[in-house]
């Protein structure tokens, strides 16, 4: 019994890493500009579509480079056409604007790149690895592609952490996150910072899209993965990069375990037509956490004054 559960747990943790990748893009933008970017999922889809179609007729590395350029251009377009005109609006207005961007990107991506299912062949090893064969009969199965995704994710988080803590631009980003006006008054150019942060999260979206695309194929449903990243966000806190990672791991492991352990029990007790509790379990888990810590696990404490 313990073997399969552990295997599910590991599989869940690996999926969780992929959730974290999507959540990371959200956090970057929310931290720097206070925008709740609902378009992150659409950006993942758009980036994955670009990469998949480009890689059909050019080497992977060049396709990647072009996709990076496309995401930077997209960040520029969003900053220039949308955000610049919505400075100083309320949070909900900016949120709505990103919903509009999400719709636009979903339509635009499919109109330009096509709406079939595309494959991304990253040339990752596919033979499953077995570990701990001495402890469990048959050992534990691990998908190497997911392992590589986890490693890439870890590297990205490290790079981002260094970028935020050490570099000049990173300091400027943190300053903007703390206080727009104060940052502006010491001479930090807001527009450039936003451009930068959208470009970086576009890059994160590209990596996330490549990983998800290699796993599931590039298709419209990729943009729905953003919805799965939301409970990760509330669990970890909107403003915390480690939170996004830890939250992703908890959600990924939690929902897989729930499906395996809790699902059959629920089906038996309530006479259900099939399980599928994965769809809401993450949210409910996050909700329960929220009742005890309203700002998420690692979110900044909310100090309220009148």
């Amino acid at each position: 019994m313990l073997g399969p559960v552990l295997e599910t747990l590991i599989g869940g943790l690996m999926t969780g890493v992929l959730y974290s990748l999507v959540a990371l893009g959200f956090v970057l933008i929310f931290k720097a500009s206070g925008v709740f970017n609902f378009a992150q999922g659409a950006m993942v889809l758009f980036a994955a579509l670009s990469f998949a179609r480009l890689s059909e007729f050019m080497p992977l590395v060049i396709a990647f480079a072009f996709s990076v350029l496309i995401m930077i251009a997209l960040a520029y377009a969003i900053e220039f056409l949308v955000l610049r005109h919505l400075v100083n609006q309320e949070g909900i207005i900016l949120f709505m604007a990103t919903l509009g961007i999400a719709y636009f990107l979903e339509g635009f991506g499919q109109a330009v790149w096509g709406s079939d299912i595309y494959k991304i062949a990253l040339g990752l090893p596919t033979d499953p690895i077995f570990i701990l064969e001495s402890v469990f009969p048959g050992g534990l199965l691990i998908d190497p592609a997911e392992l590589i995704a986890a490693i890439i994710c870890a590297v990205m988080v490290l790079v981002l952490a260094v970028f935020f803590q050490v570099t000049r631009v990173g300091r400027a980003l943190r300053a903007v996150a703390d206080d727009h006006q104060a940052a502006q008054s010491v001479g930090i150019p807001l527009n450039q910072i936003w451009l930068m942060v959208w470009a970086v999260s576009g890059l994160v979206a590209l990596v996330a899209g490549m990983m998800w695309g290699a796993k599931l194929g590039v298709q419209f449903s990729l943009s729905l993965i953003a919805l799965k990243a939301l409970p990760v966000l509330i669990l970890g806190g909107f403003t915390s990069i480690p939170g996004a990672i830890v939250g992703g791991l908890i959600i990924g492991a939690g929902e897989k375990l729930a499906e395996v352990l809790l699902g059959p029990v629920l089906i038996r007790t309530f006479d259900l037509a099939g399980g599928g509790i994965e769809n809401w379990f993450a949210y409910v888990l996050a909700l329960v956490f929220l009742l005890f810590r309203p700002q998420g696990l690692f979110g900044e404490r909310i100090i309220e004054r009148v």
Partner: protein
Amino acid sequence: MTIVFYREVGQFKTSYDADEAIFPIAQDRWSVIVLVAFAFLGVPLFAGQYLYTEVLIPVLILSIAAIGLNILTGYCGQLSLGSGGFMAVGAYAAYNLALRLPETNIILVFLFAGVMAMLVGLLFGLPSLRIKGFYLAVATLASQFFLEWAFARVKWFTNYAPSGSVAVGRVELFGVPIDTPGRTYIFVLAITVVLTIAAKNLVRGRIGRMWMAIRDMDIAAEIIGIRPLHAKLSAFAVSSFYIGVAGALWAFLRLGSWEPLAFDVNRSFQVLFMIIIGGLGTLLGSFLGAAFIVLVPIFLNQLPSWLGISMSTAAISHIEFMLFGAMIVLFLIAEPHGLARLWAIAKEKLRLWPFPY
């Protein structure tokens, strides 16, 4: 000679009642009365089936849902992405009551739908006492996904229908079948008018002021003696009631047969779009937003044939997505406070017109 008809000159208020009227300006009052009378008596004279089923009935039903969400989000400031789920609660509650007690009056069925949605809304409104803003918005998504899942999986709700899709039979009111588009329209219109008047009186009364105080600053509201528990939960209750009734109406009178997918998260976004485009915190905005959201896709679908271009359906749907997204962004940039604000500005201009000030 210019026509100067929109003036309140000479309209003196001589009693408190007159001062507190819903429409203190006579021209406003009369135009609303004329509009409602026209909707009841004038529209059936010329409206065809297409106008009824594709435009008027959807706009009216979605307006009710938009009013519901506007009470919660626009008046009480609690952002919710769970409207689709609450519409589903209304729809399935009505379905089950009509199925299990077939003799029940249809008005009671819709009331029951509202009350059930209200109870579920109260339950899912509880987290709002602890969490705020976008955290709450994501928490309401939990209710959306949970409810969607429950109606797809718990067989009792769908009466063990093998396909998971349910259908309602004839709807009749006091022996009169509501089967033609014209009758459906009148029925929906009557419910909309009643619910709108109720909502107007709620939001301008004590309870509405309580909601608005919580919206504007919850801590300050608490300090002046408003209990957040009462204010927030009552907003959730009233809002879910409206959305539940709208869900039942949508299922019974617009769809006829449906599955949980009809109330998925896109429906929630649709209702949210309505109140943002229409205007947060205005009842007029709920109607304008609903009309906008229903009419724009119809318009976009017709556009290629008007222009004489032939396009594949996939391309049309992609372009529809793009145009819809672009319109939302453009709209937010041009008028973040929605259509209702445009209307208010137009009215203000009309008061002075033709003079500059």
